[in-house]
Every structure is written in structure tokens, then in C-alpha cells.
């Protein structure tokens, strides 16, 4: 018997749905371009009347564009196939458009960090012009001051996370893990990174000057956290200031290890952090560009740990300088501080070596080298320092070079500017010292892992391709091994794109993990 289930299939060339779709995409692109165009006009210093209204219009157009675009692509789109043609699209496959976008982004960062006057920042008390002037009204409302380049950047950054976050949530609408963590990232960016600090600085008075403070921005990602100016700000900022200082120390040594133990580093990297937030939302279309070669893994491990050692040294140097020069102001002396840090490092290093030697077989060398560099430097600080000259290095030089090379060039210019070339998490993978610390914890004592589902893997490689951290997930999955990698940020995309249901992010107790009987899968290589 022959039967035909469906007879209203249009035989025409393009289905009517496709026409509507492309029309929507056109409108979306148009609106967003006008919105962006207005910002560019302002940038070109073309005098726009009613700058605050122009800003609102521009933002509305941008939002409208991105939202419509996302709707057209993902809403009511029955198929959950999300990455169709991603390697054919010039912008997402390192084509000409991808390189051009990379160029625009890196130039933007260079101007932002080093030539803010080009954005219209009024120098020496002059009025802002151009793009920055466009944001003056908004800034005045929020924090009581005229806009700076950082305010402009912060606003655009937050807007990007919100809009592309919305797109991301639509794209992964069938996956509640993705939806919740994206909501979380959007919330932390808007509230903690943007609104609260702006409003806090409005509350500051002559007598209490709290530093601009994003509570969730933890040292060492926030490398300037313990600089004298900030610490003094906290100390002088009455009891609230003390509380904040205590919180910022606790979050490094207590809160974040506990959370990482329970959930893996994803609690921060994929649920809270703003750098991760931008990578996951605005960077989502570029995640597959990360390199999966063994070579890049080697580069990654060197680079990220060098940055970590650098940031520890720099911070210690900076703190010990002000402890020394302004000794009367603080209850901690420089030498006591150095001993404290040295002891802490030694305890961490010995515990690791005693209990986790096996897991660390390959990395033990790196760890040992890093440890000894640090200890020698501490000794150096102790014996060879006079005033702000530490160990023949000026702490301020150390600080400013860190700020320049790591804080600006690496995290901004390369980290975001290179999204379309190197993938979305370049900074998180190769540079972020916070990721190094959390990754270390994740590798050594976290309950988090990605479980591989028995023998179901078909080695297709979707997981590896879409891992933004460049982890070759398939290499583990096809052997039936669970994945415990320090760099895994727990974004969960590998599990989402796997067509065979092979991967699951889990926080298992170690006992439970061992309890599964062995079934047929490949043995270890």
C-alpha cells in the first residue's frame, strides 16, 4: 500500500519559510548596522544633536537587530541543528570577513587602551567629544561623573553579553543547563560588573572613598586587587571597606576552593566571570576555531603558568613595597608577609607532591620549576631589597609591565580581538591566571568531571571541534575515559553537540565514580 503522509510540501525552489527567514535576517542586519553606524558617526566626531537620545536610539537598534536575528535563526526553528554551515561562513571560518572583524576588534582595543583620546576622551579636564561624549548623560545618571573610555567599554561590553546571551539562550533552548548558566552570566555582568560598582561610586563621599569594586572579580584575574591605593581605600572606607577587603581575601583562599571542589571551575568560568561571559555569548560563533593540537596544549600549559608566576610575583612585590615604605600604616611587616607567602606556597606544593604525584606525572616538572622560581624570588625580595627597589627590580615596573602585556595586550587586544582567528577563549585558555589557579584545584581535588557513556562514542569529533578550550574531548571519549582536565571550563557544549549522548557534566563523589562496574570499552592508551 502506498501512502503519502504529507502533501503540502511546496515543490517550489525555496520554501516560503526560507523567504521569510531571509527577509527577517535582512531587517535584523539593517537595524543593527544603523545602530552601529550611529556609534561610528559619533566616533568620527560628527556632531550629533541630542547625544543622549542618539545613544538610546543606537542601542535600541542594536538590540532590535540582534534579537530579530536570533529569532529568525533559532526561534520556532524546529531543527536543533545549530551549527549548519559554520565552516562555510566567511566570518566564522577565518575567511576574509573573519580577518577583517579581527582587525577591527584588535584596533578597537588598541585605541581603547592606549589612545582613548581618539574615542573622544577629554584630556586634562576638557569636555569629552565623539563617542565618549555620547555616553556622558548615561554616565552622569549612573555614577555622577562624565563618561570615561572605561565606562563606554563597560556599557558596550555589558550590552554585548546581554544581547548575545539572549541569542545563545535561544540557540540552546533545549538545554536548560545552557539557559541557566547564561542567565547567571548575564546577571553577574549587569549587576556585579556594571551597575553595582557604578552606583557604589556615586555613593562615595569625601570621607569614605570605596574603590570601584566588582565583587566577583577575584584576584589574580583582578591583578590590581591588592594594590596600595585599593587596599587603603578599603581600610579607610570604614567597616564596609574592611568587609570588602576581607571578602576579597576570603574569596581567593576559601570561597573559590570550596566552590571549585564541589562544582569544578565552571562555577566561575562559565557561570560568573565576565571574560568567560563574553566568550560564551558574543564569542559563541567562534568556539570551533580553537586549536586542538597537542602542540597548542603544550604552549597553553607553559604560557598560562608563566602568567600565573608573573602575577604572584608582581602582587607580592607590590604589596611588600608598600608594607615596607609605609610600615607604620599596616600591622603586617614586609618580612612577615614574605614568610607567610613562602610558607603558603611550600604547604601547597608539598601537599600536591605528596598526595597527587601520580596525577601530575607530566606536570610535576613545570610545577617544581614554578615553585622554585617563586621561592627564590621571595628570598631575593627579602635579602636584596631597599625601599621600592625589590631584588633590583622596581615593583612599579613589574606592575606596569604586567598591566601592559597581560592586562591589556593579552586579555584585551589578543584575547577578544582574536576571537575570529584563534577562537573565543584565547585569554581563558592561554593567559588567565585565575583559570590556572582554579584549573589546578579542579585537576587535583574537584568532584567535577565529564563522564563518558560507556562504549557509545562513535569518534565523530563534534565534541572536540566545538570545545572552545581546545580540549580533544574525543580522545578521551572514544576510549571510554572520563575527562578531568584543568582547562575545562564546564561550558557543557561538548555534551550538547554530541549526537550520541556520550558526555555528561557531573559532580560525582570520588567513591561513586569508582563504583561503576567495568563494561566493554577500550583500555587505556
Amino acid at each position, binding site marked *: *500500500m*502506498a*501512502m*503519502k*503522509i*504529507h502533501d503540502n*510540501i*511546496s*515543490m517550489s*525552489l*525555496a*520554501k516560503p519559510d*526560507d523567504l521569510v527567514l531571509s527577509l527577517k535576517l535582512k531587517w535584523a542586519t539593517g537595524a543593527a548596522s544603523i545602530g552601529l553606524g550611529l556609534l561610528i558617526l559619533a566616533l568620527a566626531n560628527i556632531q550629533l544633536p541630542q547625544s543622549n537620545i542618539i545613544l538610546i536610539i543606537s542601542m535600541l537598534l542594536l538590540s532590535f537587530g540582534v534579537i530579530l536575528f536570533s529569532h529568525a535563526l533559532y526561534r520556532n526553528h*524546529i*531543527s536543533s*541543528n545549530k*551549527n*549548519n*554551515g*559554520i*565552516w*562555510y*561562513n566567511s566570518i566564522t571560518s577565518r575567511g576574509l570577513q573573519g580577518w577583517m572583524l579581527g582587525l577591527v576588534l584588535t584596533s578597537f582595543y588598541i585605541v581603547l587602551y592606549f589612545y582613548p583620546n581618539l574615542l573622544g576622551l577629554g584630556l586634562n579636564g576638557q569636555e569629552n567629544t565623539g563617542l565618549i561624549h555620547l555616553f556622558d548623560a548615561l554616565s552622569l545618571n549612573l555614577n555622577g561623573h562624565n563618561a570615561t573610555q572605561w565606562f563606554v567599554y563597560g556599557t558596550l561590553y555589558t550590552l554585548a553579553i546581554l544581547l548575545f546571551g539572549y541569542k545563545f539562550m535561544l540557540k540552546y533552548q533545549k*538545554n*536548560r*543547563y545552557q539557559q*541557566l548558566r547564561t542567565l547567571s552570566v548575564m546577571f553577574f555582568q549587569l549587576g556585579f560588573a556594571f551597575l553595582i560598582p557604578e552606583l557604589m561610586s556615586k555613593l562615595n563621599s569625601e570621607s569614605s572613598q570605596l574603590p570601584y569594586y566588582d565583587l566577583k572579580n577575584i584576584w589574580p584575574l583582578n591583578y590590581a586587587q591588592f594594590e596600595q591605593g585599593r587596599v587603603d581605600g578599603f581600610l579607610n572606607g570604614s567597616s564596609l571597606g574592611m568587609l570588602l577587603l576581607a571578602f576579597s581575601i576570603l574569596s581567593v583562599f576559601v570561597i573559590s576552593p570550596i566552590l571549585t571542589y564541589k562544582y569544578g571551575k565552571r562555577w566561575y568560568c562559565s557561570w560568573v566571570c565576565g571574560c568567560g561571559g563574553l566568550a560564551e555569548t558574543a564569542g559563541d560563533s567562534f568556539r570551533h576555531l580553537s586549536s586542538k*593540537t*597537542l602542540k597548542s596544549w603544550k604552549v597553553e600549559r607553559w604560557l598560562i603558568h608563566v602568567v600565573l608566576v608573573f602575577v604572584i610575583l608582581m602582587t607580592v612585590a607590590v604589596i611588600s613595597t608598600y608594607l615596607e615604605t609605609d610600615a607604620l600604616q599596616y600591622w603586617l611587616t614586609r618580612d612577615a608577609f614574605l614568610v607567610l607567602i613562602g610558607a603558603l606556597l611550600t604547604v601547597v606544593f608539598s601537599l600536591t607532591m605528596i598526595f597527587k604525584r601520580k596525577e601530575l606525572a607530566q606536570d610535576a616538572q613545570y610545577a617544581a620549576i614554578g615553585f622554585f622560581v617563586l621561592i627564590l624570588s621571595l628570598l631575593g625580595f627579602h635579602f636584596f631589597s631597599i625601599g621600592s627597589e625589590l631584588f633590583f627590580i622596581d615593583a612599579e615596573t613589574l606592575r606596569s609591565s604586567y598591566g601592559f602585556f597581560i592586562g591589556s595586550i593579552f586579555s584585551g587586544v589578543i584575547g577578544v580581538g582574536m576571537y575570529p582567528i584563534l577562537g573565543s577563549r584565547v585569554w581563558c585558555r592561554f593567559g588567565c591566571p585565575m583559570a590556572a589557579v582554579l584549573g589546578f584545584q579542579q585537576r587535583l581535588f574537584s568532584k567535577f568531571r565529564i*563522564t563518558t*557513556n*560507556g*562504549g*557509545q562514542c*562513535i*569518534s*565523530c*569529533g*563534534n565534541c572536540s*571541534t566545538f570545545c572552545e578550550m581546545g580540549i580533544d574531548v*574525543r*580522545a578521551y571519549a*572514544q576510549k571510554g575515559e572520563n575527562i578531568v582536565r584543568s582547562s575545562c571550563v564546564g561550558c*557543557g557544549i561538548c*555534551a*550538547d*553537540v554530541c*549526537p*550520541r*549522548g556520550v558526555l*555528561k*557534566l*557531573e559532580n560525582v563523589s570520588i567513591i561513586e565514580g569508582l563504583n*561503576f*562496574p567495568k*563494561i*566493554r570499552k*577500550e*583500555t587505556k*592508551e
Partner: protein
Amino acid sequence: MSEEHVIIIGNGISGITVARHIRKLSDKKITVISNESNYFFSRTALMYIYMGHMKFENTKPYEDWFWEKNNIELKLGSVQSVDALSKTVCLGNDESISYDKLIIASGSKPIKIGWPGQDLIGVQGFYHLEDLHALEKNAPDNIKCKRAVIVGGGLIGIELAEMLQSRHIPVTLLVRENSFWNTTLTDGESAMLNRHITAQGIDLRLGVSLKEIHGDNLGNVKSVTILETKEEIQCNLVALTIGVTPNVDFLADSTIAINRGVLTNRYFETSVKDIYAIGDCAEQQLPIENRNTIEATWYTGRIMGQTLANTICGNKTEYNPGHWFNSAKFMDIEYQTYGIVNVQPAENHSHFYWKHDDDTMSLTFEYNKNSGEFQGINSLGIRLRHEVIDRWLNEKRDLEYVLHHLNKANFDAEFSRKYEKEIFNLYKSKVEL
């Protein structure tokens, strides 16, 4: 004494797995011959290249340096014949290589059953890398290919439908059965997939088969006629995906015993000493429990490769694949199966079936009516934990136990909605009736 030379014909999952494991266990000289690609790639990922999710590069599970580093020689070439007497394999242009042990892992090829017009331009199967290249030529977009007709509603057919649709090419899918894949799935499951496939915009024709393919005067396909309805459908691509069969023609003149595939025992030994066969091309002389004698799946190829490596390296090991499992994906709906679920329950067996209201998820449990013993499960749209189900099968748990502990077997992403309670309540309500 120089090391034994092991030649492997075929660099698919079976050939590569056996090569890697022989290397782990020994220093034998290993040569892998393939007529398809320089390096091992994942056949299961071919579809994602066409869909633009991956580049060919991404489908290679090992980086190119891996083989040299592990001293596994890769050779591009086509084995024309095997001479078991002189222990040599013969490649084209008079090159022959001698072996001490030969492993045949030549995989499958698409079945063609002699339809009129099956050699026209634009008619193709989908199995090898070259088929992907052909598809890229025959159906690059919906301007060149205004409609595609896929013949055969199997796993490859449905993948092709999804692929073509990703490029907005209208697809007609001809399925001989009265419901999609109902030779393997139960009626309820198959019916749900019919609805899903149709809802995705595929022109699904059930209970029909291909009569003839017509070409234009340039030799390009232009239409097909359906046997049952005589209807003619205009199209620019005809994909023949009614199934695969062992790719063993090159062995026809050899002394190796062949039925459909190369016949082997449970040690993968063929009728000729020092020649073995694994993967899609191998056929077990005697069925193992109720498994098929030819198993054309990824996982079995992998397990066979690992098993045979032990035998080759002196630790004779029997093929013992454990409980059956498999998985697939039908457009958006993932499918997993563990143990045995028959289309109609076997004698003394029964099915317990749950389907979610949204028509994208279902579970079918087969169990023994008398003892209650759990036999196997089919899952659509829900991920299950292999380890746990395998354990339950080993422990011969009964259905009620399984349903009671079903949450332990859930493998969906965190925060996913759970249906175990609903399922258990349905079961209770049925028992009480």
C-alpha cells in the same frame, strides 16, 4: 629474528583499532593499506562535513604525526587480490607485499540492486569519502539540486535527509515499509518518528519503492518513478541507501571462504591460516546468542579490533561483545538501545511503553511476563547511562526494580526535566488494572 609483518587491509575503525592495539602489545611490523584516504577519519562524521559543522581535518581522531611516532606504516593503495599460498597481497601495477599475518578489515559498500538508470550522473550511495565529494558535486545547493530523492529509510538515508535539508534542498524519502525503520523499532516508536520526520519538512513516502530512474540526454538524472503509484518525481539527485553489504569482491578469486562476508570463527580466524577478518566485512559462521552474524556498526568494529590484537600478539581471545547496544540520531531525536527490544515482544515477553506528550521522547522496555526480568530498552529523546543499564542486565533485574531506579540511569544534561516519576506512575496504573 626480524619481527612478524602484519598487513591490515582497510584503515577504518576496525583496521586502525587492531593496528593500534598490536602496537601497544608488541613491536611487530604493521602496514595498513587503504584505497580511501591517507589517514584514518571518522566515517560517522562524514555528514557533518557536508553540513558545515566540521572540516575534514576535524574528523581525524589522531593527528597525522601519530602514525609515524607509533611506527605504523600507512599505505595508500588498492588490494586487488590476496595470494594465500605465497602469503602476499597484490596491489595494482604489479606491486605485491608479503605478510606473515593478514587482517581483512575492508568494511562495507552500498547495496545496488540493478535498478534501471542506477548509473546515471547524480545517482549515488553514501558510504565512502568519494561519495561525499560526489554529493558536493551533485547537490551543492538548491539551485543545482532542486529536489533529492532518497531511496531507503535506514540510518544512512535519514542522515542524508538531514544533510540535504541543511542546504535547503527539498527531500523526498522513499521507504518500502509502512512505517519508518519498523524492522527494528516498535510501532509506537516508528510512528513517532514518521511524525517527526514529516514535521521537519521531509516528504516522507511510506510503503513505496523505486521502479526506475530516468535521465536526460546528457546522462544526468532527471526523475524517478515509484513502483506502487507510477508517480514520477522530478529530481536532480537520487541517493541509494537501502543498506550495505561486505566489501569483499577483491577476495573472490582467493581461497578464503566467503558467504556474504568473510567467514570467521569467534577468534576472527578465516578458513585460511594466518588470515583474519574483522569489522563490517566479517561474518560469524555461527551467530553469537541472538546477534546478527554480520555486525556493521562502529562499536563492534572497535571491539573486534581490540580483541583480535590480543590474539595476534599471542593471547588468544574470543570475541565476546557483551550486551548489545547501539545508538543513532533521527533528525533531532537521539536514539539509544541496550539489550534486546524486539519489534514485537518475543514469546513470553511483553513491552512497557511510555511516550511524552510532546511527541519527542519515549522509552520501551522489554521484559519477561512471567519472571518480570528486564531484557532491554529503547530510548528516544532521553539519554541513558550505559554502565547502569548494562549492570541491570547482568544482574537480571526485574522491570519494577528498573523502573524504580530509573533516575540512576538518566544521562541527560544537568537541570533537564525528569520523567521517572511519571513513568513509574504509568507503570503502577497499568499493574493495578
